[in-house]
């Protein structure tokens, strides 16, 4: 009984510590060293049985704090539906045919006034759909007065014109797709696009996601992208982290946290230090960025 009570108490303490840890972790990223000590303290208290590993030796604190930056993966979501593969199209057509064959009888008299124009149109269209699904031999042509049939067809045509049917639709391929303009937000409407900036780092041009240092009361992503757009940052949690290889070991470690955002309106107006920008798909990003950078960011991007 005593042992049980002790066990309960130790678990309870552990829960308290974990809660405290969470609060610290959420409050700021700068508290990371503090969190680490708490986490290492919490581990011995789990030693209820003999199975837990021995406490790890505390690593000596680094003399310099790591330099933190935030990068934004700014995404333009698809604005068009996905194009279907030929297999998917055939599958859908087949399923629609089965559904058509199995469907329950349609109550014409409930939905249409008898002899109304809408009913005539529905019947004509329905005949076309039956033909498309099961072939022209399937639909039995009822005898109809040829004069009336012509009049019906003309009336339906007029109705269709009034409702604006047959007007050309906006093409799925935008002008920027044809011209290869990667700055346009209208390009590749079916794909997820991400903003990439070109800047000079250590004397050479690199493509990377927009990023900035941690400063108070400063919107990080606006530093490089300008204020001429509406964005929405998805979450307060970073979606990834990247530590660039250090050039000289004496300088503090550089850590970049990635956050996801969506562009809602507007366009990028890059800062003067930025040479160029582009909205690219995942596959296009691979060709632009460094290999090392790509290995770290590729899993944060959507394949399609």
């Amino acid at each position, binding site marked *: 009984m005593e042992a049980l009570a002790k066990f309960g108490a130790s678990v309870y303490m552990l829960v308290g510590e974990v809660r405290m840890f969470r609060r610290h972790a959420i409050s700021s990223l700068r508290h990371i060293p503090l969190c680490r000590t708490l986490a290492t303290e919490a581990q011995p208290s789990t030693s209820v049985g003999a199975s837990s590993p021995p406490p790890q030796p505390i690593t000596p604190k680094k003399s310099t704090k790591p330099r933190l930056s935030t990068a934004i993966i700014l995404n333009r979501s698809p604005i068009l539906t996905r194009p279907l593969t030929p297999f998917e199209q055939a599958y859908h057509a087949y399923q629609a045919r089965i559904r058509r064959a199995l469907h329950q*009888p349609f109550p014409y008299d409930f939905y249409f006034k008898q002899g109304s124009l809408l009913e005539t149109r529905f019947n004509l269209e329905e005949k076309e*759909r039956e033909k498309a699904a099961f072939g022209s031999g399937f639909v039995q042509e009822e005898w109809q007065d040829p004069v009336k049939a012509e009049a019906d067809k003309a009336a339906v045509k007029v109705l269709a014109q009034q409702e604006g049917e047959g007007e050309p639709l906006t093409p799925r391929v935008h002008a920027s797709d044809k011209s290869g303009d990667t700055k346009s937000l209208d390009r590749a409407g079916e794909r997820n696009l991400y903003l990439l900036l070109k800047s000079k780092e250590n004397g050479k041009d690199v493509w990377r996601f927009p990023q900035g240092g941690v400063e108070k009361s400063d919107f990080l992503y606006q530093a490089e992208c300008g204020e001429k757009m509406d964005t929405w940052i998805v979450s307060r949690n970073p979606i990834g982290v990247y530590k660039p290889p250090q050039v000289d070991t004496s300088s503090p470690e550089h850590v970049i946290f990635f956050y996801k955002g969506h562009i809602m309106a507007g366009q990028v107006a890059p800062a003067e230090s930025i040479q160029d920008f582009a909205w690219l798909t995942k596959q296009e990003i691979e060709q632009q960025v460094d290999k090392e950078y790509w290995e770290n960011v590729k899993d944060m991007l959507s394949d399609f």
Partner: protein
Amino acid sequence: MRLHQREYQADTPISIDALFGPTPQSKHQNFSKSKSANNHAIRSRPPHPCSPPQRPNNRSPPSPVNLVTREFAPCRLEDHYHTTLQEDLMYMTYKHEHLPRPQPRQIRLTFDPNDPYSKNRYNPPVGGSRVGKKLPPPSTPNNVIKLEKVVIHTMVKEALQSKSNLLGAIMAMRTLTGEGHKAGGRHKVEGVQIVRGKKSVGGWIRPGVPVGVKVELKGQSMYDFIGTLVEFVLPRLREFNGVVLPPESSSVNTPSAVSGVVSFGLPPQAMGFFPQIEVNQDSYPKMYGMHIHFVTNATGLDAENRARALVSGFQIPFIRR
């Protein structure tokens, strides 16, 4: 859209006896009648070869083979979920847990599992099931919140006087959702279901009395319904600013707050804004209000907020009052 209109339209006109079946009341009153009605259900010998095949008279003839139809058209909102929402919701609802979860507190002795007397006995947890205090399952890419079904439900008070008052609501629901009974050979699809009274409340309702109708929508038809609701109905509702959130002081441990279901109601005039109903609104005796429940797979503490995040991703607005 129009190409598939016919697949969505459901059913023959409704016959009331076939729909409701005998209620306990009617069974009691017309005993002889219900006896004769049951005659063909429990049959001692096979039917005469010349007799017509027996089937419920509100159903189409059964398919000679078991066929099940799957997706038959691309679904815009489902694509939207998979390309955009799912990823965002994973990031938004992610809770970092760097340590394994603590075991539940063992503050009371439990039965000895090796004692043959108490071997398979139920060991109740201390303090009940604690439904409202359970933590959500750990965040993984596999259990990102998703919409499981949408349930539309309407109660028709006049059906208590005469059950034929339900017919208008049934037809409206069929038109709204396009779901027929086992339509497309999908054995799980119930179509429009009759909701019956459960309790006896003096002077108002008795068990087994039909009082309402409901439809459960899943998959493609669910997303199509949400699309219609968001694009045609909600923008045209004059006094609708959004689904009202509960006040911040409300309890987070109630069963409704941890079930992961977002519910709201629409007034009767909203039904006329659905384009399916709008084309022949005169055919219905009246317009019916409805409750819409978005059932998600979220469970545990804070499930309601995660469910709201998902539903708002389909452009259903929420406001705080």
